[in-house]
Structures are given as structure tokens and as C-alpha cells.
């Protein structure tokens, strides 16, 4: 029996794992104790990844379509034919000087830069992921207000009070195992957790309090908590005055309007509860933190909701503190930069990479708004020639996936040429022209890392633990071959024989060396200080040097060695240069002037965290109308695990949660079929869409909300996955927050009818 360390990728938390392999088969997958996040533990999904490798319906060979697109008729071809055909098509785009006619769409890219290398070398900015469907509003808020990173890493272990707005990190969330382990430990040590959610998730169930909340009102509650903190002078005045871009007086003026009574009307959370939570949160500070995710931000007002939540930490001064809301980079390239030379970034911008309606997202987080892609391709607002899909399943898991997205992908006018790279016959593969069989994560090479809850950087190695079946190939091998087949200019950025030699070259700068990493799987930078108070970290600089400037605000800039440009490196603080926050003025932002400049603030106060009311919508709901929300189970991801039988035998269906009182009014009993119909809008007419789902009556949901878990509703993806459960995405319109650019998943209103 061999024990081979590698890294999980059955979700994007990337836990370190050890594969027990015998006779070329994986016997077991266990956690790698060296992983600073999961610390030797592995969730159900990670352990069930054996099923993924052994899925009898995996793709084994390259294929070319022979019937109409989507007809299911294919012929097996050789890799040489596949690469050659695709290269001919792509070479032409470069010869015609329209490389932007290539769109590479990926779902889960943990190559940490190799896809960019390919699209940059090709010359297209259209390397597009699913960020806008996932966490863009949250990441935008963190980037705009804090600057250093786009993801928080709360120091849960030392926290005394955890305020959770719509995150279900006990079941999903990027960081899942490392977070739940620490929160469980903190709770055993007396920490309290309050969860706001429309549904009693497992996280809500294991919180000290579940506060049911009307969808999209989390930010209002956060603002009202802020109101109480400021009204009762519980804020950390020193932090606000020294390290933010506002004064306490300004904040008091702004937060005045967001009273607990106002929040009660909007959210349903009582004013008294809000007052109590505000006092407890402030009292526990700095050992107090928020945690948040899609419940709070997957809304038309998601950016402001997230920003308001983040600002609570700044109000009580818990940012960067032990037990507070900490942050550090999770990018493996920060610790181990990829081997160069790297191709230059393309200068051209397209409607796909920089959709005109989202100027703030284009500024802070380009190529991330996802919900515009298919509507734009459908309307002709954006045009492409070739689509390469990599491990993404848009017809299944995107808003309007089974409807609009599938129609676009079926159309040879809108998508003239489509190459799908996947290990499984997904709903994307169904509508491709060429299929290239990918390896699973247990058969491939990567260096990878995430933000560490140990607050020190680390690097992990993903390595093949078994040989792939048939002719499956690592994405890096595919792109290297393709680049070489396209033209010599592209080939020069890919001087590697294969994925392994690239990763070996990349890993050569890790202090312990590649050989040790092969044995240990994880290297932790133990010499690094834990990332507490990163903004107070001293910056080594000689203030008397002629290339160093200090302005009136104390901001320190230094001239670059290569160009004449000055770069901000820190801020003068008590006579010492410290890092500050990586915002333009090195301070945490309670105020964003860009919002006014970009016409995203319509009133003066909207340059501060604000709340955009959902009250009118709630008041107008009839007995038949509900807000539709979606969620994830602990044993499944969004769309990639339904083929894993050890998971599907635990959760293998996804009926629609509805409160018994709401159901009874409509004459619906537990297990009945019911029709969900998308509410029609007068402002923007949409096609009538309805789906038929099974009802699951439960007290564990807000009576004006229904919920359907993702993961099921496949019509492809192999025998274990297909034709189980329901796909709610047909009902959900492609629509994003105009500021953050993140998809408003949880704002769809459906009408419910009995199905007889």
C-alpha cells in the first residue's frame, strides 16, 4: 500500500489529503495532518472522490460530433486529430487579428495561472469564470473597503462572538472544514454564534441563535447593529479615527437613519434582538467577527449588504485582531511565483470581459461579471467564434441554464465552434463540437493553496495518485500541445514538455524543494509571523532617499526601479512607515467616492454602506408568491458531485422546502407535486417559465421563502446523476447587482400552484 499526499478538489477548499493506493486503485482518502486548514480532517465529499475517479461513465477518448449539435452522435478521434483541428480554427483567429473571438470559459480552475498564460499568449481577454455567480459582491466589498485581499479569514479559534450573515460554512463555503473545526472548538470554549438565514441550515442549527430573516435584508440588520453601536458609543474610536477614511461624527450622522425599528420592518428581526446583538458584539470585540456569504450578498443589493457587514468589524476595531476578522492572501503565486517569462496581458477589452453596465466591477475585478455572458451572446451584444469550456457546466448550474444558456450553446450562429474539456459527459459536453477528456484531480499536477486559518502562508502539491483511464489528459498537457500546434509565437510561452515538468519547475523555488513536497504534500512557511494587524506591519524604507516621497496625508510612495512610476508602499504612523490597508489612501473605507464618480451612488449617503429596500417587494407578495432561494448540502457541491454514489446515497433528491402553513393555504401536502412559475415583470418581459417539483414541508424555513438545493436536476452526467431531482435554475433570471456585479440568485419571486 502506497500513501501519496495530494490535495482535494472535490470542492474549492483544496484540503490536503493522503491517498492510500494499492494495485493502481485508490483504497481510501484521508486528511493530511500537515494541512494548516483542515489539519488532517476530510469531509464526506473529499472521501467520496474515489467514486469520481471510478465513475463508469467517465469520458475516455477525444470525440468529434457527427450529428447535429446536441444530438448525442459522436465519433472517437485521436488526440492528434483533435489538437490539429482545433489549432487550425484558433490559428486563423490569430492570423485574422481577432484573437478576442476566442472565449475560454472555466468552472473550477486551480491551475493558478496556466489558463491565463494560454489566453494571454493567444491575445484574448475573454478568460471568463463563474466568479459573478459565486462570490463577486463579497469579494468586491472586501477589495474596495480593505484592499489587501478579496476574502476574509476570521480568527475563529480565538473569537468569542461570531455573527453569521447567510453563510452556511458548516456545509459548504470556501474554507469549510478548517472553519467548522475551529468554530466547533471555539464554541466548546464558550464562543457564541448567531446566524441570520432564511432557512435553518446546519450552520444555523449549530448556532446559539437562529434568526430567520427576509431575503436581501442582511445589510439592513448590519446597519442597524452599527446604529446601536454608534448610538451607545460602543465603537472603537481610535481605530475609526486613525485607520479609516471617516470620522466617528460622520458615521453617527450616516448610521442615524438605519434604526432597529426600520430593520425590524424590513427583515423581520426584532429591534430588541438587534440591540442585544449589537451590545454583545461590541462587548466581545476585538474577539468578535462576522462571517457572511450568499445569503447576504447574492442579491441585487449584495455589494452594500456585504460592505455593511464588513464595516461592523471596523466599527468595533476587530479587523486584523486575534479573534477578529483577519485577512491574508490565499494566492499560491504570492509564496511561489510561476516560472516566467509570462506573456503580456492583452490590452483589448470586450463586452464579455468588461461589460459596460458594470464599471466598478471592471475597475476592481475585471473579467468577473458572469451573468451577462449568455444574455449578451444571445442578443448579439457580444460575439465569439470559438468557445473552449473547461470544467464548467453552465446549462446545468447557471441562471437560466437549462433555458437561455442551453439555447445559446445549441446555436451554431451564436457559438460557431465549441470545444469542451471535461472528465464527465456534462450538460456542457452535450452541446459541444469536440470533447477532450480531462483527468480528475486525483490524476493531475498543481501547486495550490488557500487563505490559511493558521494565518501563515503555505503551499500544497496536487500530484497524480493513480493513472488516468483511457486517453484522459491534464489540462496543462492539453494547452501546451495546443499552443505548440497553433503557432511558434504562442509556443514560446510554453517551453515545457508536460504538466509535470512545468510543476517541477514551478516548485523548484519552494524552500524545502520539490522532492520533500512530493513526500509531505504541504509546506508551511513557519518563519512567517501570523497575520495579525497586517496594516501595522512596518515597511522597510529609507525616508531620506530621493526616490521616496511622503505626502501631506502621510502616504509613502517609492519610485520603481524600472519605470518612473511611483508606487504606494505604506503610510507614516507614529514616525514609522507601516503597510496600512492596500486602498489608495492606505485606510479602511467606510466611504467610497468612486461610487459617486461612476454614478453608482444616486444620493449622497450612498457613498457609505447603504441599504436598498426590499420592503415594497415583500409587502406586495400574495399568498401564492414566495422568494425562491437555493442552497448546498454538506455532501454535495453545486453541480459536480451528483455522480458520486457515496454522496448521492446520503442526499439524492432535492424537493422544495416550504413552510407547512404556507403550503396548507395552497392545498399542498408533504410530497405533493407543485408548479413553480416565475413571476412576470412588467418592466422586463421574460418568457413564461415553470417547473414541477416535489414539496417538502418543514418548519425550518421562513414562511415567505421556498428553497431548493442545487446539485440535482441533471439530464446528463452519467447514470448515477441523471434524472434525479429538480433543476431550479430555469426560473432564475440572469441579473446582477449593478455595483458589485454578482448574480442576484436569491431575489426570484415564484408563484406556486398545485400540480393537478
Amino acid at each position, binding site marked *: 500500500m502506497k500513501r501519496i499526499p495530494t490535495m482535494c478538489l472535490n470542492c474549492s477548499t483544496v484540503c490536503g489529503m493522503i491517498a492510500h493506493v494499492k494495485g493502481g486503485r485508490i483504497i481510501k482518502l484521508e486528511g493530511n495532518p500537515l494541512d494548516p486548514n483542515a489539519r488532517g480532517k*476530510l*469531509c464526506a465529499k473529499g*472521501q467520496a472522490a474515489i467514486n469520481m475517479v471510478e465513475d463508469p461513465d467517465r469520458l475516455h477518448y477525444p470525440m468529434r460530433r457527427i450529428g447535429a449539435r446536441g444530438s448525442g452522435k459522436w465519433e472517437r478521434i485521436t488526440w492528434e486529430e483533435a489538437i490539429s483541428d482545433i489549432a487550425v480554427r484558433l490559428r486563423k483567429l490569430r492570423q485574422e487579428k481577432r484573437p478576442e473571438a476566442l472565449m475560454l470559459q472555466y468552472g473550477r480552475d486551480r491551475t493558478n495561472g496556466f489558463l491565463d498564460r494560454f489566453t494571454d499568449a493567444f491575445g484574448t481577454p475573454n478568460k471568463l469564470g463563474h466568479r459573478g455567480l459565486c462570490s463577486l459582491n463579497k469579494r468586491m466589498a472586501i477589495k474596495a473597503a480593505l484592499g489587501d485581499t478579496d476574502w476574509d479569514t476570521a480568527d475563529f479559534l480565538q473569537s468569542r462572538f461570531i455573527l453569521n450573515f447567510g453563510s452556511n460554512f458548516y456545509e459548504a463555503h470556501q474554507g469549510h472544514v478548517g472553519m467548522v473545526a475551529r468554530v*466547533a472548538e471555539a464554541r466548546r470554549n464558550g464562543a457564541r454564534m448567531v446566524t441570520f438565514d432564511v432557512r*435553518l441550515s446546519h450552520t444555523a*442549527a449549530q448556532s446559539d441563535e437562529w434568526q430567520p430573516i427576509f431575503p436581501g435584508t442582511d445589510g439592513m440588520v448590519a446597519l442597524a447593529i452599527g446604529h446601536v453601536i454608534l448610538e451607545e458609543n460602543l465603537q472603537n474610536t481610535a481605530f475609526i479615527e486613525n485607520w479609516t477614511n471617516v470620522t466617528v461624527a460622520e458615521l453617527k450622522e450616516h448610521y442615524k437613519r438605519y434604526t432597529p425599528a426600520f430593520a425590524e420592518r424590513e427583515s423581520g428581526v426584532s429591534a430588541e434582538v438587534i440591540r442585544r446583538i449589537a451590545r454583545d458584539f461590541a462587548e466581545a470585540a476585538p474577539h468578535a467577527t462576522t462571517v457572511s456569504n450568499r445569503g447576504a450578498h447574492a442579491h441585487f443589493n449584495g455589494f452594500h449588504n456585504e460592505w455593511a457587514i464588513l464595516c461592523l468589524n471596523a466599527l468595533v476595531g476587530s479587523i486584523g485582531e486575534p479573534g477578529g476578522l483577519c485577512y491574508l492572501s490565499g494566492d499560491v503565486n504570492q509564496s511561489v511565483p510561476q516560472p516566467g517569462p509570462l506573456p503580456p496581458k492583452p490590452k483589448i477589452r470586450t463586452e464579455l470581459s468588461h461589460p459596460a453596465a458594470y464599471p466598478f466591477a471592471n475597475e476592481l475585478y475585471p473579467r468577473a461579471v458572469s451573468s451577462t455572458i449568455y444574455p449578451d451572446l444571445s442578443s448579439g451584444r457580444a460575439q465569439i467564434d470559438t468557445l473552449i469550456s473547461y470544467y464548467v457546466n453552465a446549462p446545468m448550474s447557471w441562471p437560466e441554464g437549462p433555458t437561455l444558456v442551453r439555447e445559446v450553446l445549441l446555436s451554431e450562429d451564436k457559438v460557431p465552434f465549441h470545444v469542451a474539456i471535461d472528465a464527465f459527459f456534462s450538460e456542457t459536453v452535450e452541446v459541444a463540437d469536440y470533447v477532450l477528456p480531462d483527468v480528475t484531480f486525483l490524476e493531475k499536477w498543481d501547486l495550490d493553496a488557500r487563505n490559511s486559518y493558521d494565518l501563515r502562508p503555505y503551499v500544497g502539491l496536487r500530484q497524480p495518485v493513480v493513472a488516468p483511464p483511457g486517453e484522459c489528459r491534464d489540462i496543462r498537457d492539453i494547452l501546451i500541445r495546443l499552443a505548440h500546434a497553433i503557432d511558434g509565437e504562442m509556443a514560446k510561452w510554453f517551453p515545457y514538455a508536460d504538466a509535470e515538468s512545468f510543476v517541477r519547475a514551478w516548485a523548484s523555488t519552494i524552500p524545502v524543494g520539490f522532492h520533500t513536497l512530493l513526500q509531505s504534500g504541504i509546506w508551511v512557511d513557519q518563519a512567517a509571523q501570523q497575520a495579525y494587524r497586517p496594516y501595522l506591519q512596518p515597511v522597510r524604507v529609507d525616508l531620506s532617499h530621493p526616490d521616496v516621497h511622503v505626502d501631506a496625508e502621510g502616504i509613502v510612495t517609492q519610485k520603481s526601479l524600472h519605470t518612473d512610476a511611483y508606487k504606494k508602499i505604506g503610510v507614516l504612523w507614529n514616525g514609522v512607515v507601516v503597510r496600512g490597508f492596500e486602498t489608495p489612501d492606505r485606510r479602511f473605507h467606510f466611504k467610497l467616492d468612486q461610487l459617486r464618480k461612476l454614478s453608482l451612488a444616486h444620493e449622497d449617503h450612498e457613498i457609505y454602506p447603504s441599504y436598498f429596500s426590499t420592503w415594497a417587494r415583500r409587502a406586495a407578495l400574495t399568498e401564492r408568491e414566495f422568494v425562491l432561494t437555493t442552497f448546498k448540502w454538506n455532501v454535495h457541491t453545486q453541480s459536480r458531485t451528483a455522480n458520486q454514489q457515496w*454522496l448521492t*446515497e*446520503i442526499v439524492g433528491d432535492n424537493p422544495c422546502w416550504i413552510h407547512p402553513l404556507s403550503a396548507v393555504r395552497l392545498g399542498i401536502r408533504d410530497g405533493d407535486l407543485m408548479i413553480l412559475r416565475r413571476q412576470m415583470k412588467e418592466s422586463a418581459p421574460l418568457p413564461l417559465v415553470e417547473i414541477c417539483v416535489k414539496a417538502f414541508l418543514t418548519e425550518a424555513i421562513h414562511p415567505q421563502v421556498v428553497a431548493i438545493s442545487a446539485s440535482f436536476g441533471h439530464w446528463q452526467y452519467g447514470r448515477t446523476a441523471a434524472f434525479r431531482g429538480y433543476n431550479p435554475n430555469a426560473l432564475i433570471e440572469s441579473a446582477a447587482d449593478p455595483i458589485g456585479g454578482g448574480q442576484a440568485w436569491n431575489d426570484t419571486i415564484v408563484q406556486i400552484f398545485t400540480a393537478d
Partner: protein
Amino acid sequence: MMLIDLFSCSGCHACSVACKAEHRSPIGQFKTRVQTVQSGQFPSVRKHFVPTLCQHCEDAPCLEACPVGAIERTDLGIVQIASNRCVGSGDCVPACPYGAIFISDEDGEAKKCDFCSDRLAENLEPACVATCPTDALKFGLADREDIAEILDRDLFSAQWEPEATRPRIWYHKLDKKTAEVLQRINRDSDEVKEN
């Protein structure tokens, strides 16, 4: 003995999949599973996650029920099924008040948790314990001091039906009502499905 801390259990099913990988129980059959019991009315609703497995009872009804004496108790107190003697009569299945035994769809024999005796022999903890993300599962043979110590000072730990079967699994924060609901479900061996 095993101590299961329901205050910490996140209901994640990692234990159940670890068990599946270790013992390869047939699809749809579990030696270890996590059961969920919901109580109360909106908004005062609670969910309890309860890992359920063989309780290795000191007065084990399965052991009495087996017509061929295939179920035995080891020196360490582990109740296990001797595969070479099991004839698949199925008498042990309804005898177990915890619904912890099944007749394998694959080989027709009775199966249940044996605390991963194969792993214990290699000085490893049972698979479910080793993987539990929240450290909700603790395992020790009868003399393990830290567990005995916890049980000594812990007012909230309980066994299911202690007087009837004297189980060797203790649950921290198992309330009486949840235990009763589960008892009912497991007697009827009707699985609580998650949705």
C-alpha cells in the same frame, strides 16, 4: 467506548463516508450514519444531528437473538459478527433497538460496526473518529482516562436506553426527546432522509 459530542457534531456525514470507504458497505446500507431530528415550530426550530452506529451493548440483544452464535463479544468489549459463522438468518436485525445491523445486499450476511477492529490492530482510531472535522467523536478502550474523566464530570452525557441494553456509546447533549424519536425511527428501521 465511544463518546459522541452532539454539541459539536456538524451533521456532515464525514464519519459515514469514512466508514463506507473503509468497509465498502453496499450502496444504501450503512454501518455508521448521521440521523437528523427536527423539533419545534418556526421560528423556534431545532435540528439535532446524531451519529448512529452499533452501541456495543453490554447486554446486547443481537447477541441473544442470533440462532447460530455468530455474534460475540471480544475481550475488549467489542460486539462483533463472526463472518464465517453468520448464516444470514436476519434475526439480529429487528433485535437491535438502534437499527445498527443490516443484511448485506451483496453477500447476504449480517453487518455492523466493529469499531474498525482491523484499524485498532494497527493502533489506528476507528475511521469515523479519525476524520471527524469537529472532533465530535472520541474513542477509547474501557480504560481511556480522558473519556472516563469527561464522563465523570459531565452532567449532560447519556446512553440510549441504558437500563435495557447498557450501551458502550455515550452521547454528550442527547436530550430525551431526540433519543425517543430516534428510538422509534430506528425500531421501524425507517431511514430519516435529508432533503
